[in-house]
């Protein structure tokens, strides 16, 4: 559905995107991760036909963004990171405005707006001025706006930024519903745990360079994440750490709240050898807990914390 080949974008001397190549299949939910200024918004702007690439080519649904901007706009819904709204309109008028702009036939508009308001849980706010909505509601209105022309592809740039925990949970639920509707979604977020739960694939970008793109499973494998075990021993933590570090399959042994956190090298090792070593060393084990890998770990391992 989305195909980016060697796209480079420069702002003066700054290279915002450097030879970016990326493929997102139809119906995928692609989480785009990267520090601020990494190039996520620039990538989305290229796909939304708002920005011209200096080199390379991007296609949406097989159409080139350079030559088919009008057609692409009809099948893409783009929600920018900072949502600007016409605050002199009501919610209903705002959605009518964009429905008319997307040439939705007048007869279909009312029903369509009703359904997107229902989906975004804004039915009761239909006649409220946009300026009277809370931040979370305005973000939901932004999602309603991108849905009003029933696009195949959604580009959502930080849809949960600035939202309180409840609004974030509601937004996540909304995105899951959109995924179930079969939309192809490219979503960027700083809340990595949210992407973990709803994305089928991720891309990690840093300083305009795509560090990784692929499935979540592969990302975990590549980052070596997922192989961390928390071990609590009764006494002599230092000796326990020495014993574990002497095994070549162990990368590091850290400490977290009185617990040893063992990180294993990539590959299938099993965990039994850790118990064996400790028991052989005469140490008593109180707890042995394999730690679930998180997207945060993958992100930290695959990026170097560089910001432009």
């Amino acid at each position, binding site marked *: 559905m989305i195909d980016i080949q060697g796209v480079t974008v420069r*702002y003066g001397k700054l290279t915002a995107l450097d030879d970016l190549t990326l493929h997102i299949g139809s119906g995928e939910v692609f989480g785009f991760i990267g520090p601020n200024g990494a190039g996520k918004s*620039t990538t989305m*702007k290229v796909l*939304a*036909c*708002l*920005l*011209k690439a200096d080199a390379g080519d991007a296609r949406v649904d097989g159409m080139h963004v*350079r030559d088919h*901007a*009008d057609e692409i*706009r*009809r099948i*893409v*819904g*783009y929600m*920018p990171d*900072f*949502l*600007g*709204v*016409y*605050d*002199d*309109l*009501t*919610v*209903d*008028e705002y959605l*009518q*405005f*964009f*429905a*008319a*702009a*997307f*040439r939705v036939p*007048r007869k279909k508009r009312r029903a369509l707006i009703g359904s997107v308001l229902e989906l975004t849980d804004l039915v009761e706010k*239909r*006649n*409220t*001025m946009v*300026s*009277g909505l809370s931040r979370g509601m305005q973000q939901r209105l932004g999602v309603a*706006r991108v849905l009003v022309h029933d696009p195949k592809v959604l580009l959502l740039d930080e849809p949960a930024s600035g939202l309180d925990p409840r609004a974030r949970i509601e937004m996540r639920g909304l995105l899951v519903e959109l995924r179930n509707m079969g939309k192809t979604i490219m979503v960027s977020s700083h809340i990595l745990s949210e992407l973990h739960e709803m994305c089928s694939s991720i891309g990690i970008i840093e300083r305009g360079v795509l560090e990784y793109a692929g499935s979540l499973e592969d990302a975990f494998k590549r980052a070596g994440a997922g192989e961390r075990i928390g071990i609590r021993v009764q006494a002599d933590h230092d000796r326990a750490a020495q014993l574990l570090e002497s095994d070549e399959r162990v990368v590091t042994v850290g400490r977290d709240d009185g617990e040893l956190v063992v990180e294993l090298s990539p590959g299938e090792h099993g965990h039994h050898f850790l118990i064996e070593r400790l028991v052989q060393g005469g140490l008593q084990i109180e707890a042995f807990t394999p730690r679930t890998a998180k997207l945060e770990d993958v992100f930290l391992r695959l990026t170097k914390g560089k910001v432009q």
Partner: protein
Amino acid sequence: MLPHRLLFGPIFLKETLSSGRRGMTYWLRGGYAALLCLVISLALLAATNDQPYGSSGVERLGTIAPIITRVVGIVQFIVLTHIGILLTASALSEEKLNRTIGSLFTTPMSSMEIVFGKLSSRIVQLILLGLVPLPILLALRVFGGIQAEAIFAFTTLSLSSAVLAASIGLVMSAWVSKAWSAVTMGMLITAAIYGLPWLLWGSLAQKLQPVLNWTLIAEVLAHLSAPAALFATFLDWQIPSRIGVPLWATASITNVLMAIGFTSFASVMMRRMASERSARRGGRSRKKKRAGGTAAERQQSRTVGERPVFWRQLRQPLMERRAVTWVMYIGAALLLVWAYVEWGFDERALHMLIIVPATILTLLSAALISTSIIPTERQARTWDVLMTTPLSAGEIIRGYWLASVLRLLPFPLIILAHLVVTMMIGPFVGVETPITTPLFVLGTLLCYASLLVATGLYFSVRCQRGILASALNLGLWVGLWIGVPIVVAILSQLIWGHFEDGVLPLILFGPSPLVVIVTTVLGGLDIASERWHQLHEYEFPGQELSLGGMTALVVISSLFAVALTILVHVVTVRRLRRMTLRRA
């Protein structure tokens, strides 16, 4: 609070630093210096040409120097006053749009510090501009003919007037959120402050002469009014000063005191804004919550038309605040009735007093109404969203253009209402061709208003800041309608020894709506009076035209405006199309 903290606090520092980084600051200074150089050169050329043959260079300069001082003084006064408004008209509204005003309210700075800091940073810029002509004028003083007091007087008057205008711009900026509204209202209020007292004096002087000493009142007014002081200083008007202080000094002090008053008022408005924000945050609204929810919740949604950009733009209130719009309409109606009763329909001045200000107001609004549309969308971050829709660049620009032109209609309608009343009960009754005057006036006015809106949109697309777009559009048309004819007239006088004859005045003033409209109305009045039978002609500058000639001129001039509007529209659409897939 200590004055230095009030004027030179963190806001002053921030504004001075950011204005130093803006290219516009240097373009403004450079452009102003170039304008003054042009004015001085033309005045020098014109004055040199008038000198008797055989007089020495030093003698000539001694005679020319006062003329140049007068011209520069008047130009400086007018230009700096307008720049004063333009510099502050978006000072506070941009903070609101950029949502930075909330951060300012969270600091221990008082609203006085914020507003006076904004003003003082602009005053520095105005002082720098005000000092630009001084070296040349002081150099000319060597040749005699100019008193140092005169130079000091016009510099002080110009700067104090600019500071007053800037403070009015600040009030407008705190009150409304759109730059064009702030500029228009600022200009109107400044014009009212300078002109209204004299208008009232002129109309009431004779009637109330036995009751009040109107000469004394005129003297007091002259002491308080900067334009009167300026003309009295340079044109040697004989206005006595009983208190022994020169007029320019009292007028400048009055301006500064008024500026302090306006700026203090702006700070009160800021304080009110801050308390409203905190009330909203705390869930307390000043507006009472009625049954059925707040005002925001009780709105009834309208049906959006098939052309959404046009639909929304058309529904923008003309003056942002409905109360102001109604006050303006009621005020205009009352003024019309008063003028009819006071002067009667046969008075030519009555028609000029209604049609000329209404024409200027229409053109001024047309020049400003569309300039901040796209910069405002960019600042409110709605532009990117609009650009992702399939609306074409042509549809967007046409929507904005047509809606802006339609929003201007109330002003021409005032003229039309006056002309209709004049046709029904005034001097046009029974005249064979009564319809030509309103047709000529409205046709010309609407065509040129459309053109100004189109160029405003072009600058709106080009400029990041609405205020810069406003300044450029206004400057372009003031330059073309006033500057170019003056320059050409002087050059023509120098080269050919005459200007009034031939087609040159027709070419220069034909595309000037104010000249065409004034000629049309005066000619229409002549048709209705016996003068027509004697003259049979419209008195256009440099030409006397028959009814057929005037009709041809109006048609050609209007078609020229329409053609130019289409051309500007095409250029703007192309520009916008390039921006649609633009470099961020």
